[in-house]
């Protein structure tokens, strides 16, 4: 049954939202870093651990059969959530692990050589950058970057030039975790397909906020993390087209991913098991599925509209405050409700501390995107990111707090201060 979207009802599902910080209600605007978990997720994991827990895919006992079923049902549920078949969904410990799996496996497979090129963007999270740097360094391939324009969008002209016949891989974020801008997936896929390059989508910041249809997206591989989609830590997924997954050798090896093992050699199962070495995060898979089911109980179109309204309110509010510089302030692209900014004259760390005193939790620093910050001449910024449980009143509390920052730190019109 789909419930009409009611943000108060949604909030009631999150125990942590009752927290007070220094006597003020917590305004959690750090969901881009990690989301909070609704009671249904906590309950599902606990219920599994109290009633069904045991090793999966092994043993004939009743608990093991139950656990295996719940574990594999979870795969089906999460796969459906992103528009994929369960056999195409590999459990990982998170998005970072998924990206390392892909880069590492391509390396082991000898799929890249001197002169080949890997293309990423200037807006990458380090997780979708450093594994490619390492792969390039190991294989002699060259790593190239699609630049980010001043408004935060990708330079698609440059992309068209960069992606050429030497390109083997094009990896990019669906939504940048700093800019909140939805990148043009279809266009990038067209460019990559035109030259036969593999596409890798970092869907960490889109999975919680947009309806994903990976099968239809045209990309070859995609990753996301459970802990950003109202699910638990320690689990994520790598999705891949059948033939792409089949073409990749395992990255890590061990139990449960083999058919025959001798002292000298092992033969591997097909995907997805081939990539799932060792005991899997079983209770987390079950809880991840519960998160997805919990989301599915809501009218997601209405929830997305709610988040879009928050995005508008947040961005317009910030724009109207003096001394605020938004990173990636454009109306010319779809966005999620996540906004990074700098406060002139006040370091991001101090801004965060000030907001915290008002109960507002934001993230400060480089958000694992140093090159992007450098591109904007910054070393750090403040990032506010909303979630399905965020209210307009919370956005207003946040904006009100931001308005007070420069006054508190004694900077403002005409006052010279430390550079932001």
């Amino acid at each position, binding site marked *: 049954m789909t419930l009409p979207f009611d943000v108060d009802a949604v909030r009631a599902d999150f125990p942590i939202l009752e927290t007070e910080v220094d006597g003020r209600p917590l305004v959690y605007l750090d969901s881009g870093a990690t989301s909070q978990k609704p009671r249904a997720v906590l309950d599902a994991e606990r219920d599994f651990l109290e009633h069904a827990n045991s090793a999966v895919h092994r043993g004939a006992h009743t608990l093991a059969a139950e656990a295996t079923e719940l574990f594999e049902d979870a795969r089906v549920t999460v796969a459906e959530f992103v528009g994929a078949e369960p056999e195409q969904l590999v459990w990982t410990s998170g998005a970072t692990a998924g990206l390392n799996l892909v880069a590492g496996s391509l390396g082991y497979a000898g799929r890249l050589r001197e002169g080949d090129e890997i293309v990423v963007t200037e807006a990458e999270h380090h997780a979708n950058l450093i594994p490619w740097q390492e792969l390039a360094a190991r294989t002699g391939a060259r790593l190239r970057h699609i630049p980010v324009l001043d408004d935060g969008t990708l330079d698609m002209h440059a992309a068209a030039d960069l992606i050429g016949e030497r390109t083997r891989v094009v990896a990019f974020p669906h939504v940048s975790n700093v800019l909140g801008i939805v990148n043009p997936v279809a266009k990038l896929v067209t460019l990559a397909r035109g030259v036969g390059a593999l596409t890798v989508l970092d869907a960490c910041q889109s999975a919680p906020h947009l309806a994903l249809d990976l099968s239809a997206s045209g990309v070859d591989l995609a990753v996301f993390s459970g802990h950003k989609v109202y699910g638990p830590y320690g689990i994520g997924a790598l999705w891949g087209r059948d033939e792409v997954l089949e073409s990749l050798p395992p990255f890590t090896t061990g139990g449960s991913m083999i058919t025959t093992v001798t002292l000298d050699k092992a033969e591997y199962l097909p995907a997805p098991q081939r990539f799932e070495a060792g005991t899997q995060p079983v209770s987390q898979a079950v809880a991840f599925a519960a998160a997805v089911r919990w989301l599915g109980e809501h009218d997601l179109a209405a929830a997305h509209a709610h988040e879009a309204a928050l995005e508008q309110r947040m961005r317009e509010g910030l724009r109207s405050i003096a001394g605020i510089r938004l990173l990636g302030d454009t109306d010319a692209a779809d966005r999620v409700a996540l906004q990074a900014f700098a406060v002139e004259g006040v*370091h*991001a760390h101090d801004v965060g501390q000030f907001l915290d005193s008002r109960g507002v939790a934001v993230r400060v620093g480089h958000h694992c995107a140093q090159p992007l910050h450098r591109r904007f001449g910054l*070393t750090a910024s403040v990032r506010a990111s909303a979630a399905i449980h965020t209210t307009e009143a919370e956005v207003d509390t946040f904006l009100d707090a931001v308005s007070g920052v420069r006054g508190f730190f004694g900077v403002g019109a005409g006052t010279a*201060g430390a550079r932001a």
Partner: protein
Amino acid sequence: MSGLESLYQELILDHAKNRRGFGLAEPGAHSATVHQRNPICGDEITLRVDVEGDRVASVTWEGAGCSISQSSASMLVALLQEDGGVEGMPTADVEALIAQFREALRSRGKIPLDEETFADAAALSGVSKYTARVKCAMLAWVALEEGLRQA
């Protein structure tokens, strides 16, 4: 005084704006230059210490970061200048001071920094309740400690 105001005392904001010892001096005969970074938030400092005999003759620095890290560096220089006078503070005393400072900052509010010993830097006492900020306040002090090891 609210938590925030005890953290950001007027004195701290002043030092963050008028930074003592900012701008690296020419290296002397026995000097060391140290670069320290707080990888979490990107604060960084380059600090140069000049040692003459068993005394710290001069400390200068450059860097960027939050007001806590900037003012802490400034206060450190002010302390050394005021207490050391023209001769400079004995190296052993500086080392002891750094150790004491670290202990207080890690004490989660239990050990205050007394004004007699730490001068303006005593205003950083409030930082010790904010575990995430201790590294900011320590940055210059750790850089100096490392510099003394090298000089």
